[in-house]
């Protein structure tokens, strides 16, 4: 159980990245959804012991991570949003290097562990190639391989799917799904798809705060019957935005727009109740709320 209590962080440039965040996360895939700049990376770095909060606490099982970062690090797997690797090193030798850093003392065990994580991430065939020559998806899988070396119980992956093509993204999510069952996997993304496909639990974060905390199914259930759609002309959009609680829109083939709005009851006769509520509706509805609060 990962427990985040009252976590606050303000950077020297005056930006408050985390505003008294409280969050309890249990075993399984946990999706942290939010737009760019929401504070997801700050939260993840803090949990990953890379920076200290101004106030608040993070407790993992019994470990207070600020007081005892090392105990957390022993059981932590972290993949930052961006990372580089030493040039001219093969995946195998780099993983061996990381395994040493992660405390795998025996050379033999290191070797078999490295082979195992390479197979798990489907990189075994290219283990003798330099990581710096890997494609984006392979590199991200290499990132997963390195975080698995110490059998982490807490895994943090920060926006891992950004910039991956659909095939690579699929392959990557498959790998992640495989390891999420028994551990806490904290997964941040700005793509609703990722959470939809993967997560059993989620939070939506914006402007340094948790805006919504729910399971995807529950959140969708909450909105059932409250999402309405309508076909409009593109130039009407602004007036609809002003009048209704607008969530999203999509172009049709005839260049008209189908908009989705939120309303507890039917906003009008021209609106139809949406047959399916998507997680995207939840996301935009939550963000809309935040935006309103800040007006």
């Amino acid at each position: 159980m990962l427990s985040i209590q009252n976590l606050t962080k303000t950077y020297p440039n005056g930006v408050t990245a985390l505003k008294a965040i409280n969050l309890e996360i249990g075993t399984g895939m946990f999706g942290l959804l939010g737009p760019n700049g929401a504070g997801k990376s700050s939260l993840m770095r803090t949990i990953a012991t890379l920076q200290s909060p101004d106030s608040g606490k993070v407790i993992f099982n019994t470990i207070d991570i600020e007081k005892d970062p090392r105990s957390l690090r022993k059981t932590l797997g972290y993949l930052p949003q961006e990372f580089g690797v030493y040039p001219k090193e093969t995946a195998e030798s780099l993983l061996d290097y990381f395994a040493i850093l992660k405390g795998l003392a025996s050379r033999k065990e290191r070797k078999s562990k490295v082979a195992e994580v390479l197979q798990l991430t489907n990189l075994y065939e290219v283990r003798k190639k330099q990581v710096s020559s890997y494609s984006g998806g392979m590199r991200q899988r290499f990132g997963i391989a390195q975080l698995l070396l110490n059998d982490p119980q807490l895994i943090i992956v920060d926006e891992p799917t950004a910039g991956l093509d659909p095939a690579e993204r699929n392959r990557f999510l498959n790998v992640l799904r495989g390891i999420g069952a028994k551990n806490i996997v904290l997964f941040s993304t700005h793509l609703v798809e990722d959470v939809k496909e993967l997560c059993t639990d989620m939070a939506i974060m914006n402007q340094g705060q948790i805006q919504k905390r729910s399971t995807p199914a529950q959140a969708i259930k909450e909105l059932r019957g409250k999402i309405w759609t309508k076909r409009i002309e593109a130039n009407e959009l602004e007036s609809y935005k002003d009048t209704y609680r607008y969530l999203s829109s999509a172009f049709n083939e005839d260049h008209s727009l189908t908009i989705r709005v939120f309303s507890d009851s039917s906003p009008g006769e021209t609106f139809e109740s949406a047959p399916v509520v998507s997680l995207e509706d939840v996301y935009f509805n939550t963000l809309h709320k935040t935006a309103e609060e800040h007006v």
Partner: protein
Amino acid sequence: MFKAIYLYELSSLLKQPAPYIYAIVFFAIALLSMLGTGGYFDGVAETDEVVRWLNSAHEIGFVFQYFNKFFLFLLPALIGMVIYKDFKHRVHPILYTYPIRKLDYLLGKFLSALTVVVFITFSIGIAFLLGEFILGQENPMIGPTNYGGYLSAYGFFVLPNVFSYGLIIFSIVATFRNIYAGFIAVIFLFILQVLMDNLFAAYPILYALFDPFGQNAITYETQFWTLAEQNTQAIPVWGMILWNRGLWISLSLGVFYLFFKQFQLEQETFRLFPGIRKRIQTKNGPIQASQQPEPVPAGLKLSRMDFSIRQELKAMLKLSTIDLRFIIKNWLFYVLVFLGILALVFALDRVTNSGDLTYLPLTRIMLSVPMYFFSAIIVLLTFIYSGMLVHRSRMAGSDQLIDVTPTSNWVLLGSKVLALMQVQVLLLLLLLLCGIGLQVYNGFYHFEIGLYLFHLFLIIFPTLVIWAAISVFTHTVMPNVYLGLFLLLLLWLGKDQLPQLGIESFLLRFNSAPQLVYSDLNGFGHGLRANAMINTYWLLFAGMILILSYLFWERGFAYTVKERFKKAISSLNGIVLFSLLSLCFLFCFLGMEIYQEENSPLKTPGNNKEKLKKFRADFGKYRSVESPKITSVNLDIHLYPARNSFLATGSYLLVNKTSRDLDTILVKRGYDEITSYTFDTPARLIQEDSGMQFAVHVLEKPLPSGDSMRMRFTIQNRANTLFYQNSTVLRNGTFLRTDILPRLAYFWDVSSSTPTDSLAGGANFYSPDADLVDIETRISTHPSQTALAPGKLLKHWQENERNFFHYKTTEKIKFAFAFHSGIYAVDKNKYKDTDLEIYHHEKHPYNLRDMVEGLKAALDYNTHFFGPYQHQEVRIVAFPHTQGTYASVMGNAIPTSEVRFVLNNKDVDDQVNLSFYVQAHELTHQWWGNQLVPADALGAKMLTESITEYLSLRIYEKYFGQEKALQFLSFQRQRYLRGRAKETGAESPLYLVEPEQAYIAYGKGAMAFNTLRYHLGEEKLNSILNSFLQKYKFRTDRYPTSLDLISHLKEALASEYHYIISDMMESIIFYDNSIKEVKELTDQGVEITFEVKKLDASLVNELAAGGVMINFGQYDNEGNLLRVDSLGAFASGEHKTTLLRAPRSKSIVLDPLLHFVELNIDNNRMYLK
């Protein structure tokens, strides 16, 4: 577009703090060094000598050269960085898609950074001007402000250097897209200079041309400048200097042009060898993983993680080898190491084959200059690689991956330090191998592996570890790698300048243990303990800063300095705090010890000018007091080599040799000794200066003329302190001289009397308190050692486990004694009835034959011309080179520095066989210096050194032939010309030569007598000299002066030769004779037009010459002298003469045998078709 780029880059550079820091640091160093040299901190010494002006064009040029090298390090940091940052921040893919012209882009970048660098260089000029102002015109070291000097230093050196090397470094950094390549290019330039130096040592003109910094072009142009000329003349920039500058600027433009042609505004870096790149690319290819959906495994096997201390240490070691691999896998490393080895080879060649002495490649020589050079490379590599290692993960972007692992900071830090140490060890081992390799290559098989290992790993390695620690610390706390590197370089180059600023304590001079000098006889001697102590002191400091590095180790994100401190303090747990405090305690404790030792009361108080001045004022009145003279010496000396001490008791027999009663006795005690004494007649102390160890006594009852009295004394050495060696007793190879004994005269006279002084003939040049004396010595030492003293060995016995020897002179000798003790191998020879013994280190058999030959040849020659040798034996005794590198004659001994036993006399075509020559020279002094003792007046050395040097030349020629002798003579010419350039006082004519003006006494003196010899013939000149010797031999009533010799010569010589005496002995005269034209006649004749030109010492004013005898020599293609024609006598002006052309002659040389003192001999040669 150029303007926009230029201005943008300029303003962004000026927004950074670094340029300002650089400028301030340079300003401060320049100002401090100027003020320090100008005596601002420790007072200006008063002196009558010509003083070097700090602000003459020559000196500004000289000092700026030093700063020029510093400036080079700015080039990668600023000029390299300005292009590198586009690659580093990956701006280039975006930037290069813009419609920018390549030239605008590159020049804008380069010139903006160059502008900043140029402004930084101005800081030293401003500092110097300010320094001149602070020191003021009344300071003797400040001449009139010389703006031209500044202008030429900037215009010809500083600016061309930063421009050309900035351009080269800019091109290199842009080519490799690697900022370190720029730093390495700078180091390469340094090595290049050393290589040029060694490569062209024999061709100064080439060195002047190819020196990358232009430094040696100045040296070349000004090599014969006297100090006065250096102070007032402008640097002649239009000759070699212009060529040199032109060469390097064109070279840099060429490099830039090549780079410019290749450079493309493209994302991918271009390659010097495009073919190779392609092959690698296709081999590695764009990688595609298999496309099959992968099976998801059932679950992971659990890893065992171990974080015990033992495992962490093991991890540290493993990580360090990974870092080591990273360092040594890089080709730059090999390039540098290769250059280092190259420099090592050349440096060694220079040490073993340089200047006067040509050494065998002994291990201790391998470990001296070459070692110093190579360890400098190791230090530089340490600076660079520590930066790379500390910042490596951040630069690669792997820092977050590494920082979240459970590995402790101390393991990470330790692995970096260990990796650096491994590199250092690797390089030291490489040095060892190279050293041995070079020895083998030179056919020298006496390896001293133990000495190598001891020196490299116990003396050098600790200092390298300290450098590694400070480097890691600097790079840990400095986010800017280049600023960190700069600060480290500053510390490295600046620490040796601290004494100049008055900071002399080892406590404050970072990582500067006292220099150790190894002697084969005496080992590292007494300095070893101090060295170890200072190294330990700084190692403790290194430990402390490593703990600080641990505390401030950058892990994760800390956004403010405050946050870093907070983190550091929170890491300061019990063990860390305890270690830090214990190290701090030990550091302070050792510091206290060092402080106490440095300020030890046992240290012999230093003399300074103030004290001396006061002393002269108080005691100067005794300058010409007449005292009884020492006629006989009796000594009991007990040496304790293991304890570095001795105890001596003894007595002098004093005789009143004057015709009056004498009642005053002056006593000067040994300066480094503790002496007590009594007289056998009652005497009263009337005045004493305990600092100068000088006392004045008055006898209750005056000593009548002809009467004698006895003085008894006890002497012991002062104990050594850690840093100061007061005792000359060594573990092995002790060499005690007369200065341990009490002396009976005032020794602080400033000026010698002139030879015209009527009293001069009465005083002995060497000892005012003794004429010639008997000495009897009983000397005891450690049972393993042999002790030597003047005279014949009467008895040798052992008593109380000590070796005793009893020596006594058979002939009276000068008051100059040598007492030796050591473990010697003895080489015994005989020349007629004379024993020739060489006491030497058993591992120094190399030069014994040459030495013996030298002795024999000198005995042969001198006994033939000047009568018998006065002793029954000649003893050459080796002493450690820490005591000097000279050889000298004392009684029947010739104490000879150990360096003169390891000379490489074989295969040295262009060198003098010094082993032979030095012994021949010293032995010749037995006639000229010992049988004939000069009067205490100016010109005394003309009677000893000039004649001896001339005779040595004769002996040398007899043994080695004319060609070798001519080489030797040409060395003497250079010795004179170089010596006068360094003269700080006024140059004297030979007959008034001052005792310290060796360049005149030896160099010019040998030339003068040799010229006489050529025209008179050897027999004639030697017989004239012999009659002079016989007249004064062993006389103590009347000592000869140089004037006595000159009038003797003039009497014996026809007046046509007198001009040689007056030109070369009585005045300072130069000739600038030259061949104007050579016309080949049909009948095998050559018509030569030549000019005789005589100059005074200013080399400007012409004098009228008359009756000058001239030689012409003809040489073949190989430089063999085929024929010499002597012609005479000529007056100043142009003359024509016709010579018969020798078959195969290719050139004609005026004065081939160096009979004239000429500054310029380039115009003496003309080639024939």
